[in-house]
């Protein structure tokens, strides 16, 4: 008996699975279309940047035209301007209130909101101890700012413009992770996995169509257990996903060197509870299980589709499922320890997302081993069910109907 004929069932199925994975990986990667796929984020971000610039210009243009009006004598207005100079420094530049215009003539303050030469967000009429403030809809924040300016102006006037407090401001690097930092890290983890799987796992849905259309499935099904065919296709496409992530991970890590130091300091605040090293490992593990879980479901459902139109029709429910899992896991990340977090961590399809968030919020590690085992179990279940449905619904004969047609047809 030759060596290959004495292989155990497990080794044979592993070899067959990897043969299918290799074929799918090569068939996907070594095509011109793959380059389009690989650079899709660049194209998307280019359009995003162009759109963002346009929107920013439009927003800047409109904010440049916005003013707050003081209707009061020049002396009082000077006090308000002085207070404005002091308080304005506390705002980020892009969130600063509109600049102030002074009208010393006796005019009806409400009429200022109708001016044509610029947009008026709010109007304040003196005296400063009992100012009247008017604002246009959605500009309540500016009205409150004006009221604060009046109060500060009066206080400074009462103390002879002298500052009562002389602060010393020092920047300190904090090593202990903040609760906010953990939550932000949790959200980033959930969003990161969601973003990657949204991009990548949906591709799996149409992979069986190639075998069905080319009639290759008959050759595969005679040589290889269908479960191995399904797993092989899933692993092949996962290889494509890993290549994609590795490429963009390298690109982004190089771009990161050129980012401002402030951003690096902010990123340093995102310290996950399990520590950065474990977090990176767990992120990779949960991305893997998220891909395999969603991919197994999409592959099983997509394998039932017999035409490209049916496959295209599946893209919407697939996206809805992914967004649903993201929403559930985001809620879990925001409320660690809550019932919704537990539900999200247990539900197979949301479990990888929620557990990645969990790694950012909670320090215990053993739970992740259990979670990964749980998720892999469900990958096996989804693949087995998908393969059986395919065997019963599609391979039986050419006239057999897919599951949904048998259910609803």
């Amino acid at each position, binding site marked *: 008996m030759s060596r290959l004929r004495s292989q155990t069932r497990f080794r044979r199925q592993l070899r067959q699975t990897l043969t299918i994975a290799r074929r799918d990986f090569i068939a996907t990667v070594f095509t011109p279309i793959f380059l389009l796929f690989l650079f899709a984020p660049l194209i998307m971000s280019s359009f995003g940047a162009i759109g963002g610039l346009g929107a920013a210009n439009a927003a800047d243009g409109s904010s440049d035209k916005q003013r707050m009006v003081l209707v009061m004598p020049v002396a009082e207005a000077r006090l308000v301007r002085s207070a404005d100079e002091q308080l304005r420094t506390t705002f980020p530049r892009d969130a600063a209130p509109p600049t102030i215009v002074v009208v010393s003539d006796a005019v009806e303050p409400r009429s200022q909101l109708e001016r044509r030469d610029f947009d008026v967000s709010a109007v304040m009429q003196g005296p400063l101890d009992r100012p009247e403030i008017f604002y246009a809809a959605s500009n309540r924040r500016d009205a409150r700012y004006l009221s604060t300016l009046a109060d500060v102006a009066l206080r400074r006037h009462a103390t002879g413009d002298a500052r009562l407090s002389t602060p010393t401001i020092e920047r300190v690097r904090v090593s202990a992770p903040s609760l906010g930092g953990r939550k932000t890290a949790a959200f980033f983890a959930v969003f990161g996995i969601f973003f990657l799987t949204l991009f990548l796992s949906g591709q799996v849905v149409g992979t069986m169509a190639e075998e069905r259309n080319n009639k290759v499935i008959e050759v595969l099904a005679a*040589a*290889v257990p269908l479960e191995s065919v399904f797993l092989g296709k899933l692993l092949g496409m996962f290889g494509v996903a890993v290549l994609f992530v590795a490429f963009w991970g390298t690109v982004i890590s190089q771009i990161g060197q050129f980012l401002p130091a402030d951003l690096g300091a902010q990123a340093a605040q995102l310290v996950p509870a399990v520590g950065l090293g474990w977090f990176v490992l767990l992120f990779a593990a949960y991305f893997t299980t998220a891909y395999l879980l969603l991919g197994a479901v999409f592959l099983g459902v997509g394998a039932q589709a017999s035409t490209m139109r049916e496959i295209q029709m599946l893209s919407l429910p697939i996206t809805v499922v992914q967004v649903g899992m993201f929403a559930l896991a985001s809620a879990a990340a925001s409320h660690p320890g809550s019932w919704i977090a537990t539900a999200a961590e247990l539900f197979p399809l949301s479990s990888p997302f929620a557990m990645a968030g969990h790694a950012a919020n909670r320090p215990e590690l053993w739970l992740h081993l259990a979670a990964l085992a749980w998720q892999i179990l469900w990958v096996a279940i989804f693949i087995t069910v998908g393969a059986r449905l395919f065997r019963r619904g599609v391979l039986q004969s050419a006239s057999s109907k897919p599951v949904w047609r048998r259910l609803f047809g």
Partner: protein
Amino acid sequence: MAGDWAVTAEGLVKRFGERRVVDGVDLMVPAGAIYGVLGPNGAGKTTTLRMLLGIIEPDDGHRTLLGRAQPQDASDEVGYLPEERGLYPAMKAREAIAFMSALRGLDWRTGRTRAGEMLEAAGLGHAADEKIRKLSKGMAQLVQLLGSVVHLPALIVLDEPFSGLDPVNQERLERLIVAERDRGATILFSTHIMAHAQRLCDRLAVIAGGKRRFEGTVEEARALLPQQVHYVPHHPGPDIARALPADARPDGEGWRFTLPAGGIEQTLKHLIDAGHGISGLSIERPGLHEAFVRIVGADAAEAAR
């Protein structure tokens, strides 16, 4: 292998909805034989083969493949050419064969080497690095056939292997089947073309309406019908029918009738005494086609054409 049987099937049943497509089929395929599964279209041949290979599960009955109860356990020793041919169009011919060999347990390097040799031997060496989509239908079919035997399987299952092939390639395929049998492989193939089956099969089964109607050698099938006499008179006359057996019917310039149970001598004596003489005489065994018609019925046989 259990005993000397490459394939056994006992009471195989498959239902599609309410219809019993295969209805209690038994098969015993001897190791090292060329075994034909014959039947009209829709007889259940393909479904039977797919159950034997484990592509679909039978609703009832048992089967073994090379002694294994689970067909997938024997997959490395089986080659299969399905009725609906299928290859990846973007694959090169050599890679397609190597891929099929890798599925069946050969490493890629060996698969590629053997693929090159086999393509060369089959006269397709020039197409080894052509993509499948660029090959003619016949060439692609040949590539798939080579892919099903590249790993030197102990059992080769061919579903309607001759359909779609021109006469030259049909003859080439016949030679390949015989060569594989001579190598020691068992060949199980389905067909509805009797000429191939008659030339190739050591044994055969006839399936019709999902049931096995016959199992035996080609000679045993042909023996189901009596021998036929073809007689050409030297002096034909209007009264010749009176000297011939009752079932005699005109056939060209002569007459055809079933060989009488007691032999031809008495009939010939009557003919000579009546002055018709003998210009030609032959005693013929019926062909497999006639036997097939007898087994499955004329209508079903017509459907098989």
